[in-house]
């Protein structure tokens, strides 16, 4: 009866992420103060509070409706800034990949994340090492794919993705920023973790919590 990832578990993912963003809002804003404009935590929290409010009102009938109409559209209209478009783009592309499905199996889910990642790269004109959210997301998607290909279950694969995302996030600290506001700092961006990478690592960790437990 369908895959391991479904509308309910995806909604749980979003709610978990929203909770983690709220809990880490101040940290994210502090990171953005050091090399940006001190609004990443505020922006993300404003957006995900609105997403949760929307989730409370709607019962999305399929994945596309959930991730496009509820999540992506809300983010697009409430977050603003770079992260708003990029997170919205990410979820929008996953929604497109999911089509009218109510659930996805592990490999289809991984494929959808890959598609989302690539759309982010395209929208942001960003590559590995630019010191952005991409540097946390890309290794996470790769680890997920690798683990699933090696026969791991979704839960274990997402745990490995979380480790990879955290490592990717930490690896942004020594990088010289080439995209986003941090790039204006030149050499002075070195030594600071990228705020978008930090929120992206929270997103993967939330997936491990919400989707991993669901699939056992």
């Amino acid at each position, binding site marked *: 009866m369908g895959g391991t990832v479904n509308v309910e578990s995806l909604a749980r993912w979003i709610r978990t992420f929203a909770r983690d963003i709220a809990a880490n809002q101040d940290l994210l804003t502090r990171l953005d*103060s050091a090399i940006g*404009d*001190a609004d990443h935590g*505020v922006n993300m929290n404003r957006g995900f509070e609105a997403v949760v409010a929307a989730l409370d009102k709607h019962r999305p009938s399929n994945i596309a409706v959930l991730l496009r109409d509820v999540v992506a559209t809300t983010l697009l209209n409430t977050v603003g800034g*770079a992260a708003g478009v990029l997170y919205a783009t990410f979820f929008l592309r996953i929604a497109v990949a999911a089509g009218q499905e109510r659930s996805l199996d592990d490999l289809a889910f991984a494929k959808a994340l890959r598609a989302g990642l690539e759309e982010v790269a395209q929208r942001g004109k960003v590559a590995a090492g630019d010191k952005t959210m991409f540097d946390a997301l890309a290794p996470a998607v790769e680890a997920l794919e690798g683990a699933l290909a090696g026969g791991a279950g979704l839960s274990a694969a997402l745990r490995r993705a979380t480790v990879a995302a955290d490592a990717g996030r930490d690896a942004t600290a020594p990088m010289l920023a080439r*995209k*986003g506001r941090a790039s*204006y700092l030149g050499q002075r961006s070195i030594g600071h973790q990228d705020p978008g990478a930090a929120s992206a690592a929270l997103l993967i960790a939330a997936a491990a919590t919400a989707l991993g437990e669901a699939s056992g």
Partner: protein
Amino acid sequence: MKKLINDPAGVVAEALRGMAAAHPGLRVDQQNKVIYRADAPVAGKVALVSGGGSGHEPLHGGFVGLGMLDAACAGEVFTSPVPDQILQATKAIDAGAGVLHIVKNYSGDVMNFEMAAEFAAESALEVRSVVIDDDVVGRRGVGLTVLVEKIAGAAAEQGRSLSEVADVARKVNAGGRSMGVALTSCTVPAVGRPTFELPETDMEIGIGIHGEPGRQRLPLAPAKQVAEYLLDPILADLDFTGGDGVIAFVNGMGGTPLIELYLMYHEVATILGKSGVRIARSLVGSYITSLEMAGCSVTVLRADDDLLKLWDAPVHTAALRWGR
């Protein structure tokens, strides 16, 4: 945090209410946070939309009116507006002659305007975009944005076509350079503490307009020296001698009083004079700010006869007004 505000989350909406109340020549869509010329869409005229994070007032809303913008989209403080806002504005002001998006070069602004333009294209609207990147340090859009909006706005008011107006905007962008200095940081209302710490003895050179730290931290210096720090990279980046002179613009970051801006303008004019750059026009004041940050930016724009005529053309907005 010492601010004349109520709830930090409501700052932008409440300030827009104040703008609406103070300026009968504007129409404010509170829902979408868009400021319109009351008479937009203006029949036959290419329409100009700009927008960006709030906290840079009078930019952009203060530049809506005859001879400048048709609409300005206000984002949250230092956060770009969202595609839907921009799309709404684009639709509302289009008078059939097409719409120009004037976008400051920040990832967020560029991507949000890009998405809005894609959506607009789906609705068969004709949209061109010009990205302003005058900052010599980081190619961000800073002071020159004001001059682009004024000059392109005048071109549109003259009845030029969308591609001609876009060309004017691009010409201004190509011929202008800016550089900024901060003496203090600023505090995003929703954050409640200064974006960065700047000791009493230091200043930040090469800042943008979002309270972000600059490229370099240096000890405070006399105005004469600061003017050199700002102008040297500008003059190194582009040749401003010859032609019909330049438009020189000394802009305050929000917390610096006018007396200091005029003093800085004196230094800037002196250096330009010594460098063989002729000042044809000037602008001194706080027009593109970073909340209450103390500091200033200097913009130099190479002008030809056409640009000067467009600069001199009438403009009737809340923050810039002359002619007719």
